[in-house]
């Protein structure tokens, strides 16, 4: 065998092909069998094995579908179900995923219901994308239902209770029996026709009380389903009891379990709204004031932190004062230092004053003075003593000295010629006779 001819699958590839084959061949199958090994994990999905005498098949019903069950699954129960074949690649197992299960032995009506449901579902009438959200607060509510009976009263009561001033428009229809389907369809026509006009209803409640599957037949009709689907105004279905499901329920924009519930779903509690509004308004005010408060406190903080430079100024002032003090101290230091030096110098100068000089010179001068006087005195004394000696010697030689011994000297007058010889004198001539103690004037009387 050529290698080229050999097709080799990976496990995934093979599994993937088998999965396609299986799932495309059996998109939906009706299958009957007996439940065994039923388990319900926390997830809420049902896992079980469906078996007959010869074969087993794994089966799952997911939680979403479980709610539609009108009975409890249990081991040993024979069922008929609608499901898809699914291959779970990671484990290589296949199983059937049930969309719908009913006990085996259900009637033809139910079968027709299921068939229609599948058809419409496949057509997309149940698709979420077609479901219109309900108005939050409708101006007017249209109720399509029987004008008699508890349903309408319940609805009105509840609406009144919840939101007194909402208008209600009732389109009375037959809800079972002949003519019910056309009336309901026509009611939708009317509502939608009026939809363009002012004050029209903004939501429709299609309601009916509980009943058998036969009683609910109109709501399982294709006509009504299509009327509901066609309605531009959102439709809330409230048909039968909580466990009753009709085709209309699937098509409706919202299914309410009961008519009362429908009223509750459609109409909000006015008080609640009012409270919410008030609350919101209060919050609004509180928040804006909070904002302002917050900003105010930030601003206040900023204000306290915005430090006045005056504190700095204080510091600066102290510094300047210090500088001035130091300036003064130092300049006075400079001055005092110089003054000290000057004083010292001046003291030195005074110490060297010429007073000392003067004193010295004074002494010298005094000495010289003394000497001058002493020497002149000595000089004069000297001269005087010489003079005195000479005078004394002269005195000793005085010719008059002999007179003391009694001699006398006779002299002529006035020639003062000493008379030694009488011949030189004449008689009568006057002569002077010198004596020791004076002299005599004598006249010559005679000669010898």
């Amino acid at each position, binding site marked *: 065998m050529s290698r080229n001819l050999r097709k080799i699958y990976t496990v995934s590839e093979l599994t993937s092909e088998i999965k396609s084959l299986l799932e495309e061949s059996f998109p939906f199958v009706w299958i009957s069998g007996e439940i065994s090994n039923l388990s319900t994990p926390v997830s809420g999905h049902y896992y079980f094995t469906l078996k007959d005498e010869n074969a087993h098949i794994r089966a799952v019903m997911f939680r979403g579908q479980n709610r539609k069950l009108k009975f409890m699954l249990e081991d040993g129960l024979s069922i008929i179900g609608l499901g898809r074949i699914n291959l779970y690649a990671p484990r290589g197992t296949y199983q059937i995923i049930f969309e719908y299960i009913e006990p085996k032995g259900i009637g033809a009506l139910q079968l027709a219901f299921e068939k229609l449901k599948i058809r419409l579902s496949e057509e997309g009438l149940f698709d979420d994308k077609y479901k219109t959200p309900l*108005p*939050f*607060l409708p*101006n*007017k509510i*249209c109720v399509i239902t*029987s*004008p*008699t009976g508890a349903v309408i009263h319940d609805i*009105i009561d509840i609406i*009144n209770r919840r939101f*007194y*001033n*909402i*208008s*209600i*428009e*009732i*389109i*009375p229809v037959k809800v079972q029996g002949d003519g019910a389907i056309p009336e309901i369809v*026509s009611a939708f026509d*009317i509502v939608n*026709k*009026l939809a363009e006009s002012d004050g029209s209803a903004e939501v429709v409640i299609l309601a009916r009380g509980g009943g058998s599957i036969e009683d609910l037949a109109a709501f399982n009709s294709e006509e009504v389903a299509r009327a509901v689907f066609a309605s531009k105004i959102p439709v809330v279905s409230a048909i039968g009891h909580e466990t009753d499901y009709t085709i209309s329920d699937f098509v409706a924009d919202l299914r309410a379990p009961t008519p009362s519930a429908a009223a509750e779903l459609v109409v909000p509690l*006015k008080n609640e*709204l*009012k409270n*919410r*509004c*008030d609350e*919101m*308004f209060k*919050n*609004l005010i509180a*928040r*804006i004031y*909070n*904002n*302002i408060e*917050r*900003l105010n406190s930030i601003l206040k903080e900023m204000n306290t932190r915005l430090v006045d430079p005056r504190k700095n100024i204080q510091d600066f002032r102290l510094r300047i004062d210090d500088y001035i003090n130091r300036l003064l101290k130092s300049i006075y230091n400079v001055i005092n230092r110089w003054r000290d030096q000057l004083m010292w110098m001046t003291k030195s100068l005074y110490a060297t004053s010429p007073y000392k000089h003067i004193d010295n010179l004074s002494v010298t001068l005094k000495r010289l003075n003394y000497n001058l006087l002493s020497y002149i005195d000595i000089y004069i004394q000297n001269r005087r003593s010489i003079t005195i000696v000479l005078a004394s010697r002269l005195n000793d030689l005085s010719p008059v000295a002999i007179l003391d011994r009694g001699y006398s000297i006779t002299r002529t007058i006035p020639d003062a010629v000493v008379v030694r010889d009488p011949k030189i004198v004449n008689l009568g001539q006057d002569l002077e006779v010198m004596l020791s103690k004076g002299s005599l004037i004598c006249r010559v009387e005679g000669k010898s």
Partner: protein
Amino acid sequence: MAKISFEKSLKQLEEIVQEIESGNLPLEKAMKKFEEGVKLSKYCSEKLDETEKKISVLLHDNNGDITEEPFMPENEAKND
């Protein structure tokens, strides 16, 4: 604003409240939002009391004409 639904208004109002609450808006913007919020709040309040209660029954004849009658307890009797 008149065309805005109550729900939208309420939602807007809620958003505004949250926005303001977040504290991330500048004052001027917050103030503007607040103003808007006040209007919305007023609008919502008014909206709640706007409509007048009326319960009517719509009837249609074979010609397709629609008539409106007040809903009365007798209607029940009539339809029976």
